[in-house]
């Protein structure tokens, strides 16, 4: 290294954020602010609204599916009696939409976008334009997916896993819908990859002075872990999807045995991503819960660093377990035990995370706001999902429960708490920051108890049906001698779903009320210590309106010797 080092490179350390562009006026101002905005908060809201809209579609599909199972062949309210093909298309799209168009856009796209820069004291994402590109790619993928309902032959009907050769040539009338499905999914992945660059770069490079990595809120860690898992696991499926598209369009035969291909290859590529995807969804949700519990228990998060480390371990393990989705798929029997062991081992890091969350309640001063209720509910319900999963993880037991309603019940008990309890908890908690108003707590409590009651009423029967040997994805339970007697369980589950959907109305009302009227929310309605509560509600362009630095960790609640029961990260130490 010479002393006369060459002139420093003119390489921008940070992209210049949106609010430094000249504010145009009139129609273009509207476009820039609400439509093609580069402001991470607006993009977060766009993701939120798109995701919730798709949740309505997914919920409607669930309603039709459940109605068909309870009253096979009878006209669904607002829908003619559905055919077997309709039914297959609906379960396919229900799964696809709920995982890729609801869970990821809301938990990562919406909350990640809105909160990461605020929580680390940045004025925006590292690449605001990429951020906008990410949303509009996602929007395009949504359009393609919804369009696939209306093409000749209808939407894809080969299951959300799209196993070849069914997806390639098993439903001849369905080629176009299947091709659009692959295209939409590939676009969605592309959008999440583009977004992921931001979610990983921003927390590493844009943190305000004093915000060391281990002073970041747990939510940011969880977002980074989820994004990293996603970016390192989705690639093979993107490549595999292109190959599948070639198979669907040209009968290339990469997955067709008679052409020298192998259908199991797709299953491996799919689940190599598909299992980590579960954690991509779960981690942001547990991150949200980890933000809410300390605030309403007025206690520091119990074991912040162990939680971070366990998350990293779990993220690593999540790449070594994918074949447990294939125990009976013709997998090499020698592979089953290794994958079974890694699968069951992954319960250890998650046990640490969940136990730490529970330990945070110990000797707390717990206030049961709606957000807190949903946070507790998320942990309580997810425990059901996690524990029921062990039976699927044990290869021998999985022989029996695989592809039965047991697995349907199990993954709904993991994904529903993560996606919906997590989202609701986050919305009731951060709504003041997002929209400057509070969500109605009274409606919120009705929403929570109704949701919890009917969620369990919907899915406990499914676990029982699975134990009874009821395989999934059949559109008329009366056909099989061993499924027919379980019709009453189907009825209970269906009524459960009716109630579940019905009890989303309080939320819808609170949601609308929360969007209109005067902004009354103060900066820090919950007396929380993390940085997003230091910004105005809602924050303007550039987020913060006063200078500050970070002086401590994110969860300094009830600190002995501090007059207030919480020490915000931005408060200078006075001693």
């Amino acid at each position: 290294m010479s002393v006369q080092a060459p002139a420093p490179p003119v390489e921008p350390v940070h992209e210049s954020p949106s609010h430094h562009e000249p504010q145009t006026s009139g129609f273009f101002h509207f476009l820039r602010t609400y439509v093609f905005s580069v402001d991470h908060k607006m993009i977060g809201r766009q993701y939120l609204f798109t995701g919730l809209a798709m949740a309505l579609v997914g919920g409607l599909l669930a309603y039709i599916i459940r109605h068909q199972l309870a009253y096979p062949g009878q006209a669904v309210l607002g829908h003619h009696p559905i055919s077997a093909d309709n039914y297959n298309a609906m379960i396919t799209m229900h799964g696809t939409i709920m995982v890729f168009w609801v869970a990821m856009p809301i938990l990562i796209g919406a909350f990640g976008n809105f909160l990461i820069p605020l929580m680390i004291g940045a004025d925006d994402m590292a690449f605001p334009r990429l951020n906008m590109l990410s949303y509009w790619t996602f929007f395009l993928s949504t359009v393609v997916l919804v369009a696939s309902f209306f093409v000749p032959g209808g939407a894809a009907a080969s299951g959300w896993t799209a196993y070849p050769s069914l997806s390639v040539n098993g439903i001849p009338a369905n080629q176009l819908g299947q091709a659009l499905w692959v295209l939409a999914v590939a676009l969605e992945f592309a959008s999440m990859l583009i977004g992921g660059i931001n979610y990983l770069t921003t927390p590493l490079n844009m943190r305000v002075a004093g915000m060391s990595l281990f002073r970041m809120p747990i939510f940011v860690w969880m977002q980074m872990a989820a994004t990293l898992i996603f970016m390192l696991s989705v690639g093979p499926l993107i490549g595999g999807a292109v190959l599948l598209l070639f198979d669907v369009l040209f009968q290339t035969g990469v997955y067709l045995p008679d052409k020298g291909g192998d259908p199991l290859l797709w299953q491996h590529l799919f689940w190599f991503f598909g299992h980590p995807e579960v954690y991509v969804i779960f981690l942001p949700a547990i991150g949200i819960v980890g933000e809410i519990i300390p605030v309403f228990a007025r206690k520091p998060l119990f074991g912040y660093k162990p939680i971070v480390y366990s998350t990293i371990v779990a993220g690593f393990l999540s790449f070594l377990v994918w074949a447990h989705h294939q125990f009976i798929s013709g997998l090499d029997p020698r592979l089953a035990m290794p994958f079974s062991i890694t699968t069951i081992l992954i319960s250890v890091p998650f046990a640490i995370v969940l136990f730490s969350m529970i330990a945070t309640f110990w000797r707390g001063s717990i206030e049961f706001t709606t957000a807190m209720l949903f946070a507790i509910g998320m942990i309580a319900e997810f425990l059901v999902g996690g524990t029921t999963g062990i039976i699927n993880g044990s290869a021998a037991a999985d022989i029996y429960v695989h592809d039965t309603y047991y697995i349907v019940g199990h993954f709904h008990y993991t994904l529903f708490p993560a996606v919906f309890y997590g989202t609701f908890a986050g919305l009731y908690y951060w709504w003041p920051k997002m929209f400057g108003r509070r969500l109605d707590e009274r409606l919120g409590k009705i929403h929570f108890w109704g949701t919890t009651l009917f969620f369990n009423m919907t899915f406990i029967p499914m676990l029982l049906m699975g134990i009874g040997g009821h395989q999934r994805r059949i559109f008329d339970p009366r056909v099989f001698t061993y499924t027919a007697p379980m019709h009453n369980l189907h009825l209970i589950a269906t009524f459960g779903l009716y109630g579940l959907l019905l009890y989303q109305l309080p939320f819808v009302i609170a949601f609308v009320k929360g969007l209109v009227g005067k902004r009354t929310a103060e900066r820090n309605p919950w007396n929380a210590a993390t940085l997003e509560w230091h910004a105005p509600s809602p924050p303007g362009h550039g987020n913060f309106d006063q200078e500050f630095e970070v002086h401590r960790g994110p969860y300094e609640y009830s600190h002995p010797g501090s007059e207030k029961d919480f020490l915000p990260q931005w408060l200078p130490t006075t001693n």
Partner: protein
Amino acid sequence: MHLQIETLKPAEHHEHPNYVLVYGALLALLVVSILLGRLPNAYAMNALVFTVAGIKAILVLRYFMHVKFEPWLVVFILAGATFFLVVLFIGVAPDVVGGGGWIRK
């Protein structure tokens, strides 16, 4: 202010390697790999050709992409991605190559 283009810390500076030399090496390796492709023994041929490809890739990474001068995080990212690819290969090979031990029809 932080939004203006900041220039890099002096620590970021590094001597530029002799790029033309690296380029020459890459071309030479290209010729080598084409020649190796003519080997009669398929196993040796594949092994050697892909070894050469690996060397070429490492040359580009180290000298053209300056991984040599990047922090450990970058190496970690790349190594991680490659590691999971190896995991994928090991996990899938018994099924797709070995046919899962079943008779192929």
